[in-house]
């Protein structure tokens, strides 16, 4: 048994951590959020230059051949800095579809563009009615000769705002909630018939709702086997939960640490508020929740890499994470008092980000339910 990072993994973690510390001050980030695109192209280039984009891709695809451990290492550090660049949505999430389902010619076309950072990818898999069910797909893809025609709407496409290329789930057969009949497509974002509604999410990221009207996609852009997309979607979602979960674990660490620090300097009733035992107990519990959720992250990462009980472990992790997000997040704000409610202090930004991650790919109730089902 070994819970430590290899030397290489440690170096990777340190290089991400260094970037966050030196190039990602809270004020720099705020300026980036204010910009038109809501992220920095310069930072994206840095990620490519430092070779972080290649991490999840296999060596034969031109990547680094990283495991979930490397993903965790990068994302946890990104979480500590609240990095807003579309790394997760493009490199990890959209990239994951390509890694898991693309044929060799598709890989050759797309993966180099992700690795060199020249193009931004995004995945469109949620619909208004679908909540967190990946198979709940109404968007249709109708085969017409050598093409498919896509019709429907996708919501909350992370990074969809700036994406050049989309991975889209659409139904090629069956009823809206059938497990069979979901297919995946690679679609250029500027294809005729796609309309975009851009928006900011509450945590300051950019996303888009997309509408597809008779969007023509060549059969060569079908990703994986027709009608067999669900298994891929679930596999991708599992990895996405690990990545986002690691980000949240990093952000939660900052939240409890900043709360402890603040309690040492905030004086009320002639003493630092950290001297009040009732607050000490709360902060101890915040610490405990962080220890527990970090353990759960390691568990999920190891199960994922070993291919054991993956879905059940992922749901267990997401439940634990949901609890930690509420407890640590809410108390971080509470213990800061009024100042914790402000936009000016970074604490509220961490709180908003972890709250967002809490619902992504299924909230706590959803995964508790799923855990029960998978346990039967």
């Amino acid at each position, binding site marked *: 048994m070994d819970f430590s990072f290899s030397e290489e993994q440690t170096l990777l973690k340190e290089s991400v951590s260094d970037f966050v510390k030196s190039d990602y001050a809270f004020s720099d980030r705020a300026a980036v959020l204010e910009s038109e695109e809501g992220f920095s192209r310069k930072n994206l280039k840095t990620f490519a230059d430092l070779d972080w984009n290649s991490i999840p891709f296999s060596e034969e695809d031109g990547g680094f051949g990283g495991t979930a451990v490397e993903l965790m290492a990068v994302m946890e550090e990104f979480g500590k800095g609240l990095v807003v660049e579309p790394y997760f949505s493009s490199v990890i999430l959209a990239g994951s579809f390509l890694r898991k389902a693309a044929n060799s010619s598709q890989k050759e076309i797309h993966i180099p563009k992700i690795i060199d950072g020249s193009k931004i990818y995004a995945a469109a898999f*949620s619909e*208004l*009615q679908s*909540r*967190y*069910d990946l198979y*709940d797909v109404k968007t249709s893809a109708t085969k017409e000769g050598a093409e498919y025609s896509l019709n429907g709407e996708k*919501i*909350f496409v992370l990074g969809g705002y700036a994406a050049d290329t989309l991975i889209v789930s659409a139904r090629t057969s069956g009823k809206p*909630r059938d497990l069979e009949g979901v297919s995946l497509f690679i679609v250029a974002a500027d294809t005729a018939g796609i309309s975009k509604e851009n*928006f*900011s*999410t*509450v*945590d*300051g990221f950019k*996303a888009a709702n997309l509408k597809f009207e008779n969007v023509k996609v060549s059969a060569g852009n079908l990703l994986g086997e027709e009608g067999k997309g669900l298994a891929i979607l679930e596999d991708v979602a599992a990895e996405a939960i690990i990545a986002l979960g690691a980000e949240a674990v990093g952000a939660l660490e900052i939240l409890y640490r900043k709360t402890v620090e603040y309690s040492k300097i905030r*004086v*009320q*009733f*002639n003493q630092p508020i950290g001297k*009040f035992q*009732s*607050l000490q107990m709360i902060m101890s519990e915040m610490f405990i929740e962080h220890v527990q959720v970090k353990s759960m992250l390691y568990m999920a990462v190891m199960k994922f890499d070993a291919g054991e009980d993956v879905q059940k472990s992922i749901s267990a992790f997401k439940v634990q994470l949901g609890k930690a997000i*509420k407890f640590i997040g*809410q108390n971080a*704000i*509470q213990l800061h*008092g*009024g100042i*914790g*409610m*402000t*936009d*000016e202090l970074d604490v*509220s*930004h961490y*709180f*908003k980000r972890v*709250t*967002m991650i809490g*619902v992504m790919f299924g*909230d706590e*109730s*959803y995964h*508790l*339910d799923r855990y029960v089902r998978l346990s039967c």
Partner: protein
Amino acid sequence: MDAKYSDEELKFRDEIRQFFEQELPETLKSKIEKGEPLYKEDQVLWQKTLAKKGWAGINWPVEYGGTGWTLMQKAIYFEEQAQHDVPGLIPFGLSMVAPVIMAFGNEEQKSRFLPDILNSNVWWCQGYSEPGAGSDLASLKTTAVRDGDHFIVNGQKTWTTLAQHADWIFCLVRTDPHVKKQVGISFLLIDMKSPGIDIRPIKMMDGSNEVNEVYFDNVKVPAKNLIGEENKGWTYAKYLLTHERSGISAVASSKRTLEKIKALAVSTPAGDATMMEDSAFRKKLAEVEIELIALEYTDLRILSEVSTGKAPGPESSVLKIKGTEIQQKLTELRMDLASYSGFIFHDPVGDNNEEALYLRGQGIDLAAQVYFNVRKTTIYGGSNEIQKGIIAKAVLGL
């Protein structure tokens, strides 16, 4: 024991219903139905409508133009107000400074300030908190130095809700720095148009601007604006805290919110069914509902004790703690229903920079922002930790 309304109370309830149904101005009605934000002019219009009927001073005695209602009547009023989605009145003038003026102000102050508060001609804000004085309010540093028939005020207040809309601010200021901190504080009314006052908005995490910093730089305040005696301000402020606390539990509005959440659950698809049929959601909903029933009866119990003459004691801390916890839980339920769609950011500041008074959300829009916003309820009005401290000391004798 009997928790039913008497015939007389039922008649009273019907009168209120009828008034709300007939007199709520159309402009407000449509905004409320559409879940649109309310602006200052909306609040003013509604308060004036109520004032005409004699119902603006809900907590006020008859001699000052108030309703003189019993606690039970007020409870019925708040229940109907919530059920009809009628906006509550902004509290700073009506239920914060007015009771202090009534109890400790002189006749000149009463006639100068009270009618304009009742008729919403003049808006007030509360200048208590400072950067260094939050929970420990008595450590406040803003000074007021006597200079002939004026005070010269210097310092800073913060978290001042709606200061940007206020005409006047009631402040706790330090008039004697040489004594124990509680006995060197005075209660001063200050015109917001006085030279030397600077208001700076604070942007909150939900994007709204409910609160502000208010700076005082050699602000000249006529001595006739001092309430009661110099250095007795702490007593007056405490009077306010133990005085009228009806509505502090927010039971009526939480019940209404719960109903809306149920309706929303029924119309929110989840797979082949709706969220109302989702067992995990239903259980969470039921747990909040049960807490709320308990609080409703706690509220009624305290109400009936106070009605029989007992002063509202530290039990009101129970209402504050549980009431705010439930309000927060309700925002979590709405977020659960909303899923992704509740996380789209809506800027509460409009295109022309016009700004709604409070963040309001209907349906699933703003679900996450309202969740963020309502974190405030356990922080302000005496944080929940402070309230628990009060129970420990004043009730349990620890």
